[in-house]
């Protein structure tokens, strides 16, 4: 089996938002919609303050709350763990958006363009009316993964088969790979580092891990 997952190393993320820009470029999301975004979090009180850059987006959960509530079956989970939305089935009720504890879902009620009402040339070329007024979210760039694996490439290793945000990450903070493969990059990173998953107490089983420290010596062995 394969379980695609993403890893974000909080020690490495510099908050440059290149992943956000790359995602918007790769997926042609409208202004205001960021499937991959990086939060700038300030922790502590002056003078003992830390800044943490926190990449967030769809966590492609093992037990996605959005999947159960969807009344149309537009939201589905593939065997490889990727949660998808069928834009032709979705009726835009927003139920999945309020069910998601990660605020990963978006709904654009009407076409929005960067420079007013009319689309710029590049926007007109990639505008997809099917995405208007329905739920949208990060897909882990599923088309790249499918097309890459069909060519015998390895997602997370070969850029052509890897999500755009991971490819673009200039500090190597983002990694992608197969959790079920003990030799994959993400499995190795999780073995070598201490990590957490967002809102783990909710039992959603996110497929998105955050690294924050090196593993304790006994755990790394």
């Amino acid at each position, binding site marked *: 089996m394969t379980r695609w997952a993403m890893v974000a190393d909080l020690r490495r993320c510099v908050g440059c938002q290149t992943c956000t820009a790359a995602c918007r470029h790769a997926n042609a999301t409208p202004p205001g919609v*960021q499937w991959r975004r990086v939060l700038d979090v300030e922790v502590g009180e002056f003078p003992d303050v830390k800044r943490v850059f926190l990449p967030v987006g769809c966590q492609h959960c093992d037990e996605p709350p959005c999947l159960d509530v969807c009344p149309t079956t537009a939201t589905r989970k593939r065997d490889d763990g990727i949660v998808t939305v069928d834009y032709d089935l979705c009726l835009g009720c927003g139920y999945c958006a*309020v069910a998601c504890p990660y605020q990963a879902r978006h709904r*654009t009620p009407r076409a929005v363009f960067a420079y007013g009402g009319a689309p710029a040339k590049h926007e007109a070329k990639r505008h997809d009316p099917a995405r208007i007024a329905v739920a949208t979210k990060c897909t882990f760039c599923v088309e790249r993964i499918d097309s890459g694996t069909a060519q015998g490439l390895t997602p997370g290793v070969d850029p052509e088969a890897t999500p755009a945000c991971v490819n673009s990450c200039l500090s190597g903070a983002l990694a992608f790979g197969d959790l079920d493969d003990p030799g994959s990059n993400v499995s190795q990173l999780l073995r070598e580092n201490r990590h957490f998953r967002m809102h783990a107490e909710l039992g959603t089983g996110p497929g998105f891990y955050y690294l924050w420290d090196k593993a304790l010596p006994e755990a790394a062995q």
Partner: protein
Amino acid sequence: MTIAYAYGPNPWPQSFWDARAAANFVCGGAGAGLVVAAALSGARGTALVVPLLAGLAIVACGLAAVFAEIGRPLRAANVVRNPATSWMTREAIVAPLLFACGVAGAFGSLAFVATAAALALAFVYCQGRMVHAARGIPAWRAPQVPWLFVATGMAEGLGLWLALAAFLELRSARVAGWLGVAIIARYVIFRIYRRGLGRALAAAPARALDAAGRALLWGGTLAPLVLLAIAAAVRTQPWAPWLLLAAGLCAALFGAWLKATLVLRAGHTQGYTLPALPVRGTRA
């Protein structure tokens, strides 16, 4: 139409379900409660038909409001595709059955009235479970939410029945008794719900819920209970039905306020939390 996005670590108000969704929950509960009240009243003829049809009409108004909210109304029929896990689908399946049995009860056999009341209860329960399943909103996912919805729906519906009874000159002792039970149950469930949430809520939704809770106590619980008691004591007076009308309206309006607050002002997201801070310089 403005598109509002808020990105940040702290909880912010959800923007996907607005007043139209709140109207569905308020009207759905009150309308379904009115159908149940009509069945409980034991009335016949006009005294049965008017509240029954009014209840169905209120439910229909709520559904029309939420229909106006969905992004792709022409695909509304797709809502019934996931009965296995989605409470929205279940609500959508129960609704037409409720309308059919309600109309059949009003104009046909009385046997359908009891069925309509059972379906009305199922409808409001589905709405409660629907909100409870929205796990991204801490104020909604509490385990007491379905029962709070059922209790508020019944209290609002029974209150509306009493208000109608003042105009239809109906005997209402039985319904008044049930209303007393429903508003006490509603407040008790609300207190358990609020205590269960504890400090899990952000400041803004907590303030909104507490304000609505105070209004529910004074306006939606104590005031109608006092009015019901006075009305029972002076039941032979010609103005006694007006006390019942006031009690009913208090029960209905403050319940609706609570539910609208829950959906619109207490519906904050969870935000993000960092269980551990990065220890920089520890990865090659």
